[in-house]
Structure formats: C-alpha cells, structure tokens
C-alpha cells in the first residue's frame, strides 16, 4: 500500500541540500576537466605572448639564449617605479651580456599606472620600449601603444630607440618638448607621454648604473 507522507522540514532540507551538492560536484568536476584540457594551451599562449612582447623590444639578432629561463627577480625598485617584485630578462649572445629586458612602471599616467617593457643594450642604448598595460584615454593618450598610434611609420614610442645616457646626457633633454625636452607629444594629451618619458629615463639610468650587477647575479629559481 502506498502512503503519501507529508514531507517534514528536515526531510525537505536534506533532500534539497543533497541535490544541490550533487549539482555542485558535477559542475566542479566538469570545470576541472576543462581546466586540465585547456591548461597546456593557455600556458603556451602566455609564454608565446610574453616572447612576442619581448621580441618587439629586443631584435632577434641580439641574443641566442632562452630568455624565459635566464631571468632575475628584483625586489621592489623605486627607480623602475615598481612597488612589487619585477622580472629582468637577460639576453646573451654567445655567452656575452647583450641586453637587459626590464619591466618598468610609470606611476603618474593620466589614468593610473602605465606598465612598460624596456630593452637596454649593454652599451646603454635603448633597443626598444613597449607599453604592455595602461588605462589611458582611448583615442587620446593611447598613442603610446604603437597599435593605436596613427603614425604607423614612426610610432611615438620608437623615439627612444638608440638613445642612451651617453648620447643624451642632459637630464633636461629627457622631457617632452612642451617641458623643454626633446620628445614630441600630441597636443591635448601631454600627461601620458610626460609620464612615459620620465619612467623611461629612470629605467635607463637604473640599467646603466646596475648593468654589471644585473648580468652577474644568480638567475631566479622558478
């Protein structure tokens, strides 16, 4: 004989709780599987992206070592604008120090921090600068990114290429033209390039002063 029983509160609660737990377990398992399946591809894309950014600042003929393993972790460094640890990639050619690739931050952008990657050769010359992350106004301050720069032949950020403290010794020259320096800027958006120029100058100075030490230091353990 079938009896229909009025469900008790505890019965209802445990039933729904069990169903919810089953759903959670099933979907967590599904996500774990997808995560495991996509992880190799995600890691590969991240490494490839990192190398692509590095290759934009660092010409391929300047190194023959594996950059992603020959790294150094710097403590928070005021000269690079870093309040946190940052990574230095050390490019070597036939075992000889060739170029330092540094991560620097311009803290005083128009909309917060501007993160950059700089390659500075052993002779102190800038091999390249790229902005890796910024929140500058789209269409106004974002010309610091070559992709967004309307000048495709000589993007703004390439003005630094080939410069060194030896070639441009006066600190006053490391400023935008509006402030009496040698760097161009687009009218109406001076705060952004001003921050970038200042940060690049500080990073170049840091790399020039600490070149020997950075190349000689033990590589970071990963």
């Amino acid at each position, binding site marked *: 004989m079938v009896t229909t029983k009025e469900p008790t509160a505890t019965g*209802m609660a445990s*039933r*729904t709780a069990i*169903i*919810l737990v089953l*759903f*959670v377990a099933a*979907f967590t398992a*599904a*996500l774990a599987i*997808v*995560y495991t399946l*996509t992880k190799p*591809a*995600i890691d590969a*894309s*991240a490494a*490839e*992206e990192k190398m692509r950014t590095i290759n934009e600042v660092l010409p391929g003929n300047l190194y023959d070592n594996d950059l992603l393993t020959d790294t150094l972790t710097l403590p928070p460094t005021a000269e690079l604008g870093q309040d946190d640890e940052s990574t230095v990639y050390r490019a070597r050619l036939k075992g000889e120090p060739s170029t330092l690739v540094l991560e620097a931050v311009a803290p005083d952008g128009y909309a917060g921090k501007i993160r950059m990657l700089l390659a500075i050769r052993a002779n102190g010359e800038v091999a390249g600068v790229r902005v890796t992350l910024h929140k500058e*106004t*789209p*269409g*106004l301050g974002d010309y610091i990114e070559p992709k967004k720069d*309307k000048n495709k032949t000589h993007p703004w950020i390439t003005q630094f290429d080939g410069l060194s403290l030896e070639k441009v010794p006066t600190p006053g020259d490391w400023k935008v033209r509006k402030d009496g320096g040698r760097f161009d800027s687009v009218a*109406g958006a001076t705060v952004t390039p001003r921050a970038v120029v200042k940060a690049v100058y500080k990073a170049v100075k840091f790399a020039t002063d600490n070149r020997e030490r950075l190349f000689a230091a033990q590589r970071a353990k990963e």
Partner: protein
Amino acid sequence: MLITLAEIKQISLNGVWKQNSSLVQILGMCPLLAITTTLVNGVMLSFATLLVMAFSNFFVACLRNLIPYEIRIPVFILVAAAVVTVIDLGMNAYMHDLYNILGIFIPLIITNCLVLGRIEAFAAKNSPLGAGLDGTMMGVGMIWTLGLLGGIREFIGAGTVLGGIELVIPGTSALQILPADYPGFLVAILPPGAFICLGCLVAWKNWVEARAAQRAALPPPAPLAAGGCH
C-alpha cells in the same frame, strides 16, 4: 520535443527586436558602457554573451525537471557560471588575443542580469531547443545593438569604424572615415557618451514602433493625419 516554426519566429522576433536586451529590458548596462567604445569590442563581447546564454539556457532547460523549485536560483547561477568559466578558459587557450582585449568582461558576463533573467523567465519553463534558441536570439539582439552603439561611438569619438578588427581577423585594418586629423570627440568614448547614444537608440526604437502602431491603427493610409501626433 521539437519546436514549431511559429515558435521559432516568435522567439527570434522577441530576442532581436521586441524584447531587445539593451533597448527594451535595459539590462547589462555595465559591459555596455565599458566595452562599446568600438564596434568590434561591442560585437565580440555580445558574441561571448550569446554563447553563454545559448548554452546555459540549453542546459537549464535539459535539467529543469531535476531542479527543486526552492534551490533553482543557486543551480541556475551554478550552470551559468560553469558555462562562463568554460568559455573564459576556452578563449584564453585558443583565442588569446581577443581574450586580452575583452579581459575582465568575460568572467563578468555572469553578473549580467540578462543571463539569469532569461534562464528564469524562459529556460526553466521551455524545451531545450526553444531555450537554446531564445538565448541565441537574445544574443543576436545584443550583438546588433552593442555593435551599432560601438560603431556610433567609435565614429563620433575617433572618426574610424572597425578599429581593432586586425585582432579578430588578421590582415585587415580599420576604416578611417573622417580625415586623419579629426581631433576626436572625447565624450563619445567615455561612459556618458554611451548613455547619450543608448538614449537616442531607445528613442529611435520607440519612434519606429509608434509609427508602425499608428499605421496599423489607420488601415487606409491617410496622408493628412500621418504627420500629427498625440
């Protein structure tokens, strides 16, 4: 449980026009404001949302008879969040460049009220096929609206159209519509510009519908009365 042609038509019309998520339901304003600075961004984020809605609607409709009424909302969110995470991981793995642009807004799709709204209002009561179609069509409605909004803002703000297309289809480039020395119009790019543009689009949609209703109400076209308004 298949779906009739009349239902397909009804669901599509609702998603794309009548119940358009941005113009009628006014849902998902946060991504709308932040992402529609260009046509490409607007379309790509809407496309990701379309995938989320189509799949989560479909799964919820499949499971709808297993979900106790009392805990339906947590389960709905669980399903939608799982779909968002799968799409997030998938895009990160196989469409890395696009993932970098849309960035934070992909995980945030889960907070779009539209996703949960369609699950609760439609998927929980309908067949899987119909629910999947409803999610897709809501997404199509979002694609054209956010695409148009992004296009208008990009054109007014920067004088270009299809900026950033090279990140989606390599080898193409943006169209420079206005002269290259166009100074740009900042308000259009910033969030207030999105509100102003959206307001104009809503007004335009209401105008189109009011005109259609007026025509339907007056079967023999009366040229003199057409210009009047009440």
